[in-house]
């Protein structure tokens, strides 16, 4: 009798727990059932394994800085050039690290090709989608998560298009001079801008940019137009009669000139270079900036492009395979 009661008590406790659970559930969809929940992403099955198997994390000093995909069985990795600068190692799904070295870099597409060093090994390579694979709006697409332990799911979310160059900015205002032999004076340094971070001060006079002598304000503006956010410049300035060199990493227009850009603040870290691409498709996947350089795949596990910029919390740009193919094929032909 006693045993029986204890048993009922336990059962009841369990039932009560279930009632509590189901009421909780009634208010809110359990996380495993949400768009990026396990129950949804597991549907990809073997295709998911293939995506993770051919994706790698790209590291600099043990810090994840980008993703890449394995594009050749000899151990060639394709990634985003401006994110993978200074990379030392890659890490695979099996949590193995390998040293890498840079082999090729393309300014136009912001792609870089890295080679795994060490004993020869046959690498499983990414399966590319057909060159004429359509990437129409609303199409499901997937990428590897940051630790290669999960798949992130989303859709192609806007029109494919060219992304024009916005130009880099220093985040300083200059006196407008048509001709000057004593440099161009800075009249204002926007707080938190790249000029501020580089240590530029009001009344500093810019004498040279990357060794080129500056004679007018227009000349500086012209130079900035040809640079991208993230580019490193050396300025020769005159501060209170003393000449010195200042190194500055150019910032993004929206940060420099709309300091309280709420959207950017709500978005968290975004890619430094997120403009000036020959052609992109847009997706809404929940990716972090350290996941750029990784692949974007269709549900069949075929790679349709490389994620090339995290722009804000609803936008990633992906270079589609037809843009990548000619660059990559030329590189691989030259190296084999």
């Amino acid at each position: 009798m006693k045993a029986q009661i204890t048993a009922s008590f336990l059962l009841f406790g369990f039932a009560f727990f279930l009632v509590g659970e189901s009421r909780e559930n009634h208010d809110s969809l359990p996380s495993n059932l949400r768009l990026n929940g396990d129950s949804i992403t597991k549907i990809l099955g073997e295709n998911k394994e293939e995506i993770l198997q051919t994706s790698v994390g790209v590291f600099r000093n043990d810090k994840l800085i980008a993703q890449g995909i394995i594009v050749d069985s000899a151990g060639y990795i394709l990634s985003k050039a401006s994110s993978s600068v200074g990379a030392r190692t890659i890490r695979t799904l099996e949590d193995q690290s390998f040293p890498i070295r840079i082999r090729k870099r393309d300014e136009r597409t912001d792609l870089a090709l890295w080679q795994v060093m060490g004993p020869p090994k046959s690498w499983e390579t990414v399966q590319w989608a057909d060159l004429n694979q359509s990437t129409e709006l609303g199409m499901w697409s997937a990428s590897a998560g940051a630790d290669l332990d999960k798949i992130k799911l989303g859709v192609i979310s806007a029109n494919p298009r060219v992304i024009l160059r916005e130009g880099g900015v220093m985040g300083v205002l200059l006196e407008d001079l048509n001709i000057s032999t004593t440099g161009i004076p800075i009249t204002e340094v926007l707080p938190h801008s790249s000029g501020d971070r580089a240590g530029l001060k009001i009344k500093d006079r810019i004498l040279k940019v990357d060794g080129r002598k500056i004679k007018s304000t227009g000349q500086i503006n012209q130079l900035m137009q040809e640079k991208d956010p993230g580019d490193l410049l050396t300025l020769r300035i005159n501060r209170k009669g003393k000449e010195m060199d200042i190194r500055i990493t150019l910032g993004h227009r929206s940060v420099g000139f709309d300091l309280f850009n709420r959207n950017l603040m709500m978005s968290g870290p975004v890619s430094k270079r997120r403009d000036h691409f020959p052609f992109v498709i847009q997706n809404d996947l929940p990716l972090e900036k350290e996941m750029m350089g990784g692949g974007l795949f269709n549900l069949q596990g075929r790679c349709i492009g490389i994620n090339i910029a995290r722009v804000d919390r609803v936008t990633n740009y992906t270079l589609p395979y037809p843009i990548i193919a000619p660059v990559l094929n030329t590189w691989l032909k030259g190296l084999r």
Partner: protein
Amino acid sequence: MRVHLCSFIWLLLLSFLPSFATKPAKAEILPWSSAPLNSISDLETIQSRIQNSFLKVKKSVVSVEAEDGAGSGVVVSPEGLILTAAHVIGQSGREMKVIFEDGSEAQAVSLGGSEISDAGMLKLINTVPEFYVPIAKSSKSEVGDWCFALGHPNGFDQERGLVLRVGRVIRKKEETMQTDCRLLGGDSGGPLFSMDGEVIGIHSRISQDPEANFHTTIESFHSNWDYFVNEELHTFQSMQSGGFLGVYCEESSDGLLVLEVVPGTPAEKAGLLSGDLLTHLDGNLLDTREKLTILVSSQNPGSKVVLDYSRQSREVSVRLELSERNSLE
């Protein structure tokens, strides 16, 4: 032995009480468990339904240009009514520019809305809309439904076009619902669609968690439709000087369930008790909590209203005088 048995029964009684009080016992199937996804082709079905609906609805979605920023909206009637967010229109009677997906522009004027739910309305001026979308009936969308969001995050961009986001309804309660569709500033006021292309919500607020954003429910629009079309924007500011009743309630399928009656208020004087189900105010159906608030606070303190409620299945009607909101500390 007796002691054991006793405590068992007590626990049983106590534990069952709350579930009886909040939800009538019924064998319920959780909405999201009715059609679980099993295969890639299930995902592809969702994709093609959303793609089809997208083509049907995209010409009805607009960017709304305000003085201090840009939002989104959606045309829902042949007369040119546009659903948007209260914080996009800001106030009633304001002229605003809207931009259609193809870049064509039109003028609109803001009508009413409510800051409680963040529902807002606009109407096209001198423009007969070529396209408009259907809106879902009340209670049609539920937690677990797949849905898609459209809007103009960061403002209008013709090259980029409308931005599509796909997700599921993850919460829905009173005048607010949440989805894991990713949103950003500029999306505010844009439509949330069912997979069949009916408006089920309007984008309201983005949350710190990028995968749990807030939308005004379409139920809020249905419930207050005439007020939103004909009256002002109902603001928290305007509520302060309006009439006051003094109840906290929660929506249920049979009416507004009173959770608490505030002492010293007209509600207490009229004899309302927690557990009562409020059904009508001056003959207006109380289908949302927001509607009660709007009906009460859009009257002046001192106004007399007739409140219908049911107590233990008995219908009661009471006449009471609204007080000032600040009559209590």
